[in-house]
């Protein structure tokens, strides 16, 4: 008896023997560890994001929020762990998941126009051989319209302000027509009007039955914008409905007391 115990646990940790049914979750990770050197950036994360919900990923700088998203998308290699999209392996469900990077580290002098960047979002359906047709172009313009960037369609991508670039990358993700959208700090460095425009787009996605996961820093707006929250600081701190977990205790645990209590008091907490 005592001898068999550990073996069962190991099997469960590997997710082989006891497979949970994750098909309801648009994105779930189990036992995810990523490290850039010898120090884990995220350690043994379990996360189950809820379908048709907007989830905020919350944590201090360097907590591993971007790393969590990148590892979930296979952009950085996983040391261990499993990622499922609607219960399927990531590679089978690539088409259902779209990503907006944090202030994309791209070459802004690259010879590409705004509309071309949006069309990059259709690469999976275009494949190698299909040509870009007027219908694709029209859809690209529709995506730009949704983020209010139609007037800039013919600009070279570097000739935009930071907030405008951010909206173009959102339009590129919209062009993927995915079921789950992962956004890394879409509101960083954008003005109030742009923030409103972006949140409207995200809410429209949710209303359309898609799921949205956002890395988010502004604690003051969390309760307004999101349904769920995922608190992380290398390890998972808490996850669930805003109403039940967005409280002073979770925030203290996440930010390790670096958040002044006066600041916490001002927030609309659960």
């Amino acid at each position: 008896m005592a001898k068999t115990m550990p073996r069962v646990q190991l099997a469960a940790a590997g997710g082989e023997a006891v497979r949970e049914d994750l098909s309801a979750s648009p994105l779930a990770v189990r036992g995810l560890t990523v490290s850039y050197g010898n120090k884990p950036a995220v350690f043994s994360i379990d996360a189950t994001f809820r379908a048709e919900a907007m989830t905020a990923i919350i944590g201090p700088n360097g907590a591993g929020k971007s790393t969590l998203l990148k590892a979930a998308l296979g952009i950085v290699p996983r040391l261990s762990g499993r990622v499922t999209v609607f219960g399927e392996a990531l590679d089978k469900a690539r088409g259902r998941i779209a990503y907006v990077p944090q202030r994309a580290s791209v070459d802004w002098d690259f010879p590409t126009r705004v509309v071309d960047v949006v069309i990059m979002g259709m690469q999976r359906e275009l494949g190698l051989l299909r040509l870009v047709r007027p219908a694709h172009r029209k859809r690209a313009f529709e995506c730009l319209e949704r983020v209010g960037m139609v007037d800039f369609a013919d600009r070279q991508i570097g000739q935009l302000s930071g907030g405008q670039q951010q909206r173009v990358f959102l339009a590129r993700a919209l062009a993927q027509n995915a079921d789950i959208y992962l956004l890394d700090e879409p509101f960083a460095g954008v003005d109030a009007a742009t923030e409103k425009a972006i949140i409207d787009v995200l809410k429209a996605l949710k209303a359309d039955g898609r799921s949205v996961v956002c890395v988010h820093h502004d604690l003051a707006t969390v309760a307004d914008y999101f349904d769920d929250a995922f608190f992380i600081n290398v390890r998972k701190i808490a996850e669930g409905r805003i109403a039940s977990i967005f409280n002073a205790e979770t925030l203290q645990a996440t930010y390790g007391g670096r958040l002044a209590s006066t600041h916490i008091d001002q927030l609309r907490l659960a």
Partner: protein
Amino acid sequence: MNNFLAALTLGAGYNSALVAIGATCLGVAAGVGGTFLFLRKRALVSDAVAHSTLPGVGLAFIIMVMLGGEGRSLAGLLLGSAASAFVGLLAVSWITERTRLAEDAAIGAVLSVFFGVGVVLLTVIQTMSSGRQAGLESFLLGSTAGMLFSDAVVIAVGGAATALATVLMRRPMTIVAFDPDYARSIGIDVPRIDLLMMALVMAVTVIGLKIVGLILIVAMLIIPPVAARFWTDRSSNVIWIAGLIGGSSGFVGSAISASAPALPTGPIVVLVCAAIFFVSLLAAPDRGVLAAVLRHRAFQRRVHRRQGLLALSRGEPIHDVMTLRVLSGEGLIRADGVATETGRSAAARAARDERRWDVARSLYQDTSLPGRYDGLTAIDTVLTRDEIAAIDREIGGPAALDIKGAS
């Protein structure tokens, strides 16, 4: 000159025609294949790859001689060069990934070691008794003197295949070059695309050994896309413009070298390519240096004109020398600085435009209009006549009527 014209029409002899066809195909392939090298900012890696071909050439020669052959089969030599270029490429990526050395250090190390080994091998081959005089040094800078029909076919077919493969893979390669993280997120295998890109570059290098040689091939890969970039803001256009520039450099360069006995083909082709680059740098619309200077001048004039007119309308003295020059140049002020008749009405128009903008900005606060104010754009190019009429009503009073009379 006659020789040159004859060469341009492929009429300067059999060998020259072969060289012209080969150089053109090579130029197109290099321009197209080099585009992604340039976009991915990996030009120097291709230099390492090119220099890594040399040991392969030497080893292939030695092996062919040992097998009893003559050792000079172009296909055999190219195969050898491709193999050692591949090893060089692997060495660069291995050093970059597995050690803490940056890519430029890896490139320097691989380039010099492989080139050194190659030179040693060539020296050994020269002292070898078996085999005829190899003439392998010609791979350094290319040599088209004894080009055979089969050589031209190898180059043409290889070049066409490379260019086709590049065009086929253009979209994933563009996405990888622009935003590799995003490429991964949509399931593109970035290392594999990078490897493929380098394989295409390797193919261009290998087929270019005969004509341009391994030292200058990097120029044929990089100069065409860099020049093409001046003419367009779209990567899909860069591809074909680069192909065009590469192809015409190959064609014109080989014609020039055929028109005089002592002109080496490879270097001349590269020089023609460089000439096209300089023309692009200077003369390209929009991104060219001349266009930029002219545009800046025109812009500067508009700014000074507008500032001067607004100063006139407020009756302020103008001190800026350039402003005075612009205004008097257009007959808006007299030599003593007093506004002429046209100057006064232009100043009134400028002042009215400014007033209209002021009103429009508060009227259309929630639109993109306030962002379009730059002090230069006339408001009637942005708003409709009716909207302006509404603004004028807002401004109201006899002043508006008065100014209307002036315009």
